[in-house]
């Protein structure tokens, strides 16, 4: 896992370095161009948002997968499973509570030591506190490792997922419950067969708190994400004009890879947005852009699918590991609570 994250980081760092080099060159030009460049970036981000509309089909396929598992849902669940279900529904809260409860558990461990006279009880208390501290360190490392990759998925999918498909979130919770019931190894084996789309959604849910921790970094991540797609497009192009035929400004890397119409007419994102706000017809062939943009999205998705699959599979593995850590952490919290209750009883007895 660590080697995978390192390779991914190195892969993403190279294009970012190129981007920074080009940005320095552009910054030397006049302020007007800088303002236009800002506008172009915003338009490109809006284009990326349009591309994500294709996720609707993925949502539908997930619904079908959900419907194919009635047997597991019909199984009766024991009382312990009910408790786990409740914890699953409030998973994000429990994640935060686990962080807040850890100092309390340490305090309870400290309090328990003088009360228990026997050596065995004090030994168990020490072992519990030690395990909790190790878990905290592991969680921090996991967060640092998974930061950038998972934020990609969150930035792309959060908004649409929350707004458009609230019922599917319930289905996702149920999926998580089922995976919790099965052992860790079984979870890995089964979910290897599942779709990449499912993996995206789980990763989407698991790392919402990271959004709050790092909101400012998101635009950079989106740029990194869109960069390899642009590379694919660039390889297919034979002749690239150096300037926009409408505003006569120089085309930068983003604009030169932008191909909104099958007739091959190229223009910068700024002019494209102005035309879309107007009549929306291609200056080259005078046909409307609406149909053409859909084709554009399809081609982009087709080109980028391999990249997305690679990312999503690695992210899924991390998410499963994080979930297993959380689950074991939850077990230790339970043990700490039970010890605390025993200590209270002893105090009352004294």
């Amino acid at each position, binding site marked *: 896992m660590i080697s995978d994250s390192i390779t991914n980081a190195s892969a993403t760092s190279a294009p970012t370095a190129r981007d920074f080099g080009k940005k320095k060159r552009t910054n030397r030009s006049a302020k007007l161009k800088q303002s236009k460049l800002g506008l172009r970036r915003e338009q490109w981000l809006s284009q990326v948002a349009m591309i994500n509309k294709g996720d609707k089909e993925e949502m539908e396929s997930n619904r079908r997968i959900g419907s194919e598992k009635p047997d597991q849902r019909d199984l009766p669940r024991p009382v312990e499973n009910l408790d786990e279900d409740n914890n699953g529904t409030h998973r994000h809260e429990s994640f935060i509570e686990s962080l807040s409860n850890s100092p309390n558990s340490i305090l309870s461990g400290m309090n328990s030591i003088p009360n228990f006279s026997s050596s065995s009880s004090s030994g168990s208390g020490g072992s519990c506190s030690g395990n909790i501290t190790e878990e905290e360190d592991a969680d921090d490392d996991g967060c640092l490792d998974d930061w950038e990759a998972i934020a990609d998925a969150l930035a792309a999918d959060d908004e649409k997922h929350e707004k458009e498909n609230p019922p599917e979130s319930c289905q996702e919770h149920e999926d998580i419950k089922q995976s919790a019931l099965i052992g860790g190894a079984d979870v890995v084996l089964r979910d290897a067969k599942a779709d990449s789309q499912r993996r995206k959604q789980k990763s989407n849910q698991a790392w919402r708190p990271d959004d709050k921790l790092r909101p400012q970094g998101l635009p950079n991540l989106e740029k990194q994400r869109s960069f390899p797609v642009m590379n694919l497009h660039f390889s297919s192009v034979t002749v690239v004009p150096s300037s926009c*035929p409408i*505003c006569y400004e120089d085309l930068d890397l983003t604009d030169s890879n932008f191909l909104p119409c099958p007739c091959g007419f190229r223009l910068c994102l700024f002019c494209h947005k102005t035309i879309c706000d107007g009549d929306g017809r291609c200056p*080259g062939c005078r046909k409307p852009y609406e149909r053409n943009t859909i084709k554009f999205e399809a081609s982009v998705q087709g080109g980028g699918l391999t990249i997305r699959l690679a990312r999503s599979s690695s992210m899924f593995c991390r998410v499963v590991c994080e979930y297993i850590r959380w689950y074991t952490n939850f077990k230790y919290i339970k043990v700490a609570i039970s010890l605390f209750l025993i200590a209270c009883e002893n105090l009352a007895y004294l």
Partner: protein
Amino acid sequence: MIDFSRIQKELQDCERNQDSSGIRVCPKSDNLTRLTGTIPGPIGTPYEGGTFQIDITMPDGYPFEPPKMQFSTKVWHPNISSQSGAICLDILKDQWSPALTLKTALVSIQALLSAPEPKDPQDAVVAEQYMKNYQVFVSTARYWTETFAKKSSLEEKVKRLVEMGFGDAQVRSAIESSGGDENLALEKLCSA
């Protein structure tokens, strides 16, 4: 807001190709909203040998809106108004594209002079003459070209009228007031 940098680059482009095409674009004043375009008459047409001036007004939405063009030189053409100089050309109206430039628009107007479209006329009188009596149309168009679109003919007109016995200064002022029409100038001189 007009894209002035684009207009400046277009003017440079026209100057670069001026010798080969004969098309020129010059600004009228310090700003770039009013321009004057000059096109030669196409060879093999009644307009051959003439130089036609076109007033160009750049809208605020240029290049996403078409420029407004009209002839300042009087032309006898079915698709150009003989009174106002208004041009009936689709790319200057609904078929405008931001990829077109002033030069391409002027070339299109030049092509319109070569190939009139009388079924969609701007001037009904000229179109009717074109349809019913083509030879009269050709001779009238050539006459209008020689009268209004040729600069060298001014001296010839002055000579002809001076030979009739009128003064040189009177002749020039009459021709200027009549807009270059020799017959109209002659009438004015006779009535005076």
